[in-house]
């Protein structure tokens, strides 16, 4: 929004902190997967939860959703709801065959 002087500028520090958190979560996931391979410790659910935390950090800070108008949050919520709906319908379909 170039016509707006009070636009929010993310700080370098915030981007760096986001990066550090993402790297930490990545190495945690890899460590559990590689060193716990025999135990099959990394379940699909755990991996997906960690991935979703990472994705949220990317969206929130890197993609600036945190500071943007609410419409972006609403639209993102709509897309995620749509995807969840597809996923539930597909699961019900497969489970009832």
């Amino acid at each position, binding site marked *: *929004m*170039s*016509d707006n002087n009070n*636009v929010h*500028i*993310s*700080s*370098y520090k915030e*981007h*760096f902190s*986001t*990066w550090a958190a*993402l*790297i930490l979560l*990545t*190495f945690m*996931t*890899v460590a559990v*997967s*590689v060193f716990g*391979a025999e135990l*099959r410790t*990394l*379940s*699909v659910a755990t*991996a*997906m939860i*960690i*991935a979703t935390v*990472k*994705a949220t950090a*990317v*969206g929130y*800070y*890197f*993609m*600036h959703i945190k500071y943007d108008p609410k*419409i*972006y949050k609403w*639209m*993102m919520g709509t*897309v995620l709801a*749509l*995807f969840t709906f*597809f*996923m539930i319908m*597909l699961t019900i379909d*497969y489970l009832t065959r």
Partner: protein
Amino acid sequence: MDHTFHLPNSGHNFDAKSSKLGMWLFLYTELLLFGGLFLVYMVYRELNSEAFLLASFKLNVWMGTFNTVLLITSSMTIAMSITALQKGNKKLSVNLMWLTIIAALGFLVVKYFEWGAKFEHGLVPGMEHYDTLPMGERLYFYLYFFMTGLHGLHVIIGAIFILFVIRGVNKGTVTPERYSLSENAGLYWHLVDLVWIYLFPLFYLIH
């Protein structure tokens, strides 16, 4: 806001808000495109969990981890380049964008070696050895090549997009006051990162 009527000017209409909204709408369709593929993966994994498990051990976790670090780091550099541009530091902004492109190239080089190894082992759909694999493993590698391939295409497009922004900054069409192109390239690049965040554990890590 004045309400006088303006004739269309020399074609340099600029509307940062709409341009960003448009970019996001496009990204939502991208999310659903990859989302559909993830649903295909979900069903086939459920039906062939043992085969998917065996096949996943044939991927190189360390190459995947290295690429993950590259993408996360490049996501940071592109985000910082927008901050730099907004603060009026054009030179730093351009340098950070070059770093992002270097990371993108690094990602593709690693992918080249990864895929090369799969070709050597005959794990690519259509190869003789691939046809002898059990159904579940064939599905795994089919999805692996399709999804990482589509993602790789996005890496290439994202890097080209960033090149255009660099050109814009150098030509003076992308400025600290008109940074919307750089913002949109950044959003696209973060999407590339976002998709990889899910691809990496699903193909490399879940044992």
